[in-house]
């Protein structure tokens, strides 16, 4: 008996040790999460100091007159409460809704009206690095900040960059906004029933068909909804697919931007797809599509739109 008792004692000791270890692990994990989180936040504030060309974002004086030539940047400025500092926007900046009624419209990324931009005497012009007008504006002595969010991490970074530019402390501006977005996305993800998790989704961004891959902004949202993407990750963010590929991939549900201007069965052979047969297709209207494809401070709304579609259309797995 003695040895047994002894064994029992050892067992109890072992269990206790394991428990302690577990606790320790939990503590370590918590600590690690805190450190990692802090490191992550520091990372963002560090990378946010430079724009896409690697030039510092911050100005000696926060700008009072801002021109934005990229919709997601316009939205970011407004989300940080500096909408009143905008003096001109591009043709495609359609949120907040009244912008075009109150501000001069300065063309688009492809055909910006250089003269009209200069005439507004902006302190800074926010635009994408892909725009041809960057060097022209720089040559004319205007300060440009090039930022183009493409992913969720970019949205976070650009929020910090614009906050820095506007002279807002992160905890009052960028970080608070980011936490709000995170809460919104999380709530949208929670609204998707677990029976839908793992459903295989095909998201068509535009006719081509161009799909939203897992590394795209939309793909990241889908991942956070716990649904799968029929497009493999190695195809890049917006691969152009063969309609055949979709036919073979057999998505459970199809999401389409209205920009594709057509219905799913317009592709030959798609009528036999289960998703099409059972009308598990969401065709977003123009407004919803721009919201969904735009990586900016309406990310929570984008998540809600996608979640609503999944709740309505995605097939439930048998329990």
């Amino acid at each position, binding site marked *: 008996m003695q040895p047994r008792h002894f064994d029992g004692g050892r067992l109890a000791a072992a269990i206790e040790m394991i428990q302690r270890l577990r606790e320790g692990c939990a503590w370590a994990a918590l600590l690690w999460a805190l450190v990692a989180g802090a490191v992550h936040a520091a990372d963002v504030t560090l990378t946010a100091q430079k724009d896409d060309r690697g030039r510092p974002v911050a100005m000696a004086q926060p700008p009072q007159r801002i021109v934005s030539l990229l919709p997601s940047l316009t939205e970011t400025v407004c989300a940080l409460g500096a909408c009143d500092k905008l003096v001109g926007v591009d043709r495609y900046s359609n949120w907040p809704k009244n912008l075009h009624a109150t501000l*001069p419209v300065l063309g688009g990324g*492809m*055909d*910006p009206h250089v003269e*009209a931009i200069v*005439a507004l005497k902006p302190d800074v012009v926010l635009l994408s*690095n892909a725009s041809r007008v960057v060097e022209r504006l720089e040559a*004319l002595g205007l300060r440009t900040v090039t930022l183009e969010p493409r992913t969720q991490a970019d949205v976070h970074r650009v929020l910090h960059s614009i906050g820095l530019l506007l002279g807002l402390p992160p905890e009052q501006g960028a970080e608070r906004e980011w936490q709000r977005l995170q809460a919104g996305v999380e709530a949208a993800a929670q609204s998707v029933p677990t029976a839908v998790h793992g459903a295989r989704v095909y998201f068509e961004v535009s006719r081509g068909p161009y799909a939203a891959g897992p590394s795209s902004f939309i793909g990241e949202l889908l991942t956070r909804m716990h649904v799968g993407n029929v497009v493999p990750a190695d195809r890049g963010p917006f691969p152009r697919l063969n309609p055949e590929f979709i036919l073979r991939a057999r998505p459970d549900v199809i999401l389409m931007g209205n920009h594709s201007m057509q219905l799913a069965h317009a592709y030959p052979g798609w009528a036999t797809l289960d998703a099409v047969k059972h009308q598990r297709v969401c065709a977003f209207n123009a407004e919803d599509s721009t919201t969904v494809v735009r990586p900016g401070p309406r990310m929570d709304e984008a998540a809600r739109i996608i979640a609503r579609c999944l709740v309505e259309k995605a097939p439930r797995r048998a329990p």
Partner: protein
Amino acid sequence: MSNVSKAVVRSRWLAVVLLAATAVLVVLGACVGSTGWESVWRMRSDPVAQQIVWDIRFPRTLGAWLAGALLGLAGAVAQGLFRNPLADPYLLGSASGAALGGAAAMVLSGTAAIGMEWMQRLGMTGMAFAGAALAVLLTLTLAQGVQNSLRMLLAGVVVGVVLGAVRDMLELRYPDILQPMKAFSLGSTAFIGWPACLLMVTAWTVCALAAWSLARVLDGLTLGESTAASLGLPLGPMRAGLIAVMALATGTAVAQTGLIAFVGLAAPHLVRSIVSVGHARSTLLSSLMGGVVLLTADILARWLMAPEELPVGVLTALLGGSYLLWLMHRGHAVRQARG
């Protein structure tokens, strides 16, 4: 003899008229833009208005004229060289080649890393020139020389399509250049600053001098290949020189403004419909004409929808296309009347 000198006198008058038109248009170009005429009045007191007129409107006005002049010159050289009134920097594939060169330059430099403006402009022009030259050489190889003009035009169309497809593939592979390439293919003078003007002036001077001195071979060629050879002209090198002129002119214009259609085709036609003189004069006149045509189109593009503006390439394609249709229709009617 008096006939010839009459034509020469007429050509001088045309040159004077075109230069006068240029002067008027440059003044007009300085006045037209998104912000309207006021900028000119307020130029003395308002530094921004001064910047708008001096650093935006003047370079883009001059740039539009220069790009038109380069395209007009290239068109005249092409039409003389290939003895085909349909030859145009675009139909021989050189513009597609230049655009492909531009796309390659964008991929190589990476749109993310905008380096020094000057280096980029030179790089872009160099690549566009190389692309244009490559396209013309390909066309000539495919056509096995310049003797058969139908064959050559067909080869030019084929080369244009193939190089266009290569450009499409580049755009698909590197989607980052999609937007700038789209802007490029619309053709716009909005991005021209003083450095681009300087570059185009240099290219134009080189091309105009070369075309002027090589024009004898074009005159000889109108009498036929063998006659030209019998005149003792070194046909091969002179032809190569003219092709280089065409590629340089097209490449420079396309690199700075993007694809602008029909100017190179229409300008020599317009000149020929007014005067008939030797190639030395008509090439330079075509150049002036191209400048006037493109500058007019550019001012229209800025003015028609002000304060919005149209990409000028869209407008020249519309206007130039309509002009060509009219020319074909009239030619048809004239032939019908003649029986």
